[in-house]
């Protein structure tokens, strides 16, 4: 009887040990994943709070049908040119070209730099909206005309 009790106790104990090991691994992995996602979200939120953009100047060239949208990065977050979206008259457009302080190839749009979008629209639009990669937006309804 004595062997039976100690033997079965050992088997049950082994079972509890294996089960708690499995449960701990799953719980720790899960908690880590959620915590990492929360951390990344907090980082993103901080970036978003540090982002301010302004659609400073919108100029439509009557002779060439080209629209130039100048957006300034007034925040402290470095943004991506590629990730920035442009809406002209509430229509998503892919710009013909982008320039950051004279550089046409860069993707880095640093604080205090001016990003210029060039788009062939054909007609003078009424409103322009620029959305940074993290969702911060700026719009402008004052479209200047040049000949």
């Amino acid at each position: 009887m004595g062997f039976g009790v100690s033997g079965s106790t050992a088997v049950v104990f082994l079972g509890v040990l294996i089960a708690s090991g499995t449960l701990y691994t799953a719980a720790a992995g899960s908690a880590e994943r959620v915590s990492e996602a929360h951390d990344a979200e907090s980082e993103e939120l901080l970036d978003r709070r540090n982002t301010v953009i302004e659609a400073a100047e919108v100029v439509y060239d009557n002779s060439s049908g080209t629209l130039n949208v100048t957006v300034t990065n007034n925040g402290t977050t470095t943004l991506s040119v590629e990730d920035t979206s442009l809406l002209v008259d509430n229509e998503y457009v892919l710009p013909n070209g982008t320039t950051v302080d004279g550089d046409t190839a860069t993707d880095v749009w640093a604080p205090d730099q001016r990003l210029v979008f060039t788009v062939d629209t054909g007609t003078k639009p009424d409103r322009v909206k620029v959305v940074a990669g993290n969702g911060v937006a700026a719009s402008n309804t004052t479209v200047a005309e040049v000949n």
Partner: protein
Amino acid sequence: MADVSVPSLILFIASIVIAAGVAGVLIDTVTGISGALDDRGADVAENIRTDIEVISDSESSVYDAGSDTLTLYVKNTGRRTIPAVNESFDVIVDAQYRTNVSVTIVDGSAEWTPHGVVEVRVGGLNLGAGDHRVRLAVSGDEETFRFTTEQ
């Protein structure tokens, strides 16, 4: 002596078998719970990493009364690629669930990657003049967009 050891042996084997059964059921149950916990953790992490933003202006031009279609541009402001199919979107316009939804990627990419933009078209609407409300739900992230239609 044999009279004592045989029942003892039977009791010993029986207790070991019962203990093994109990341990087996315990391990099986806990493995199931662990699997569910793991899946739940992955789901929650995915939901946290999902974020969308409606970037259309709340003007009347989002709704085309001629074709009864609402067109919205939605930007992926999260950190994961979302399948750009209408099954990913739950669209509720003025408290009514809509199934006539089509999703197109407009930024030139093959997938709706982070910072990408898709066009969501909701057809078969019959909206009158006034204020309206669209609710988009993607992987647990909800976005409400309000707009006005003019006569």
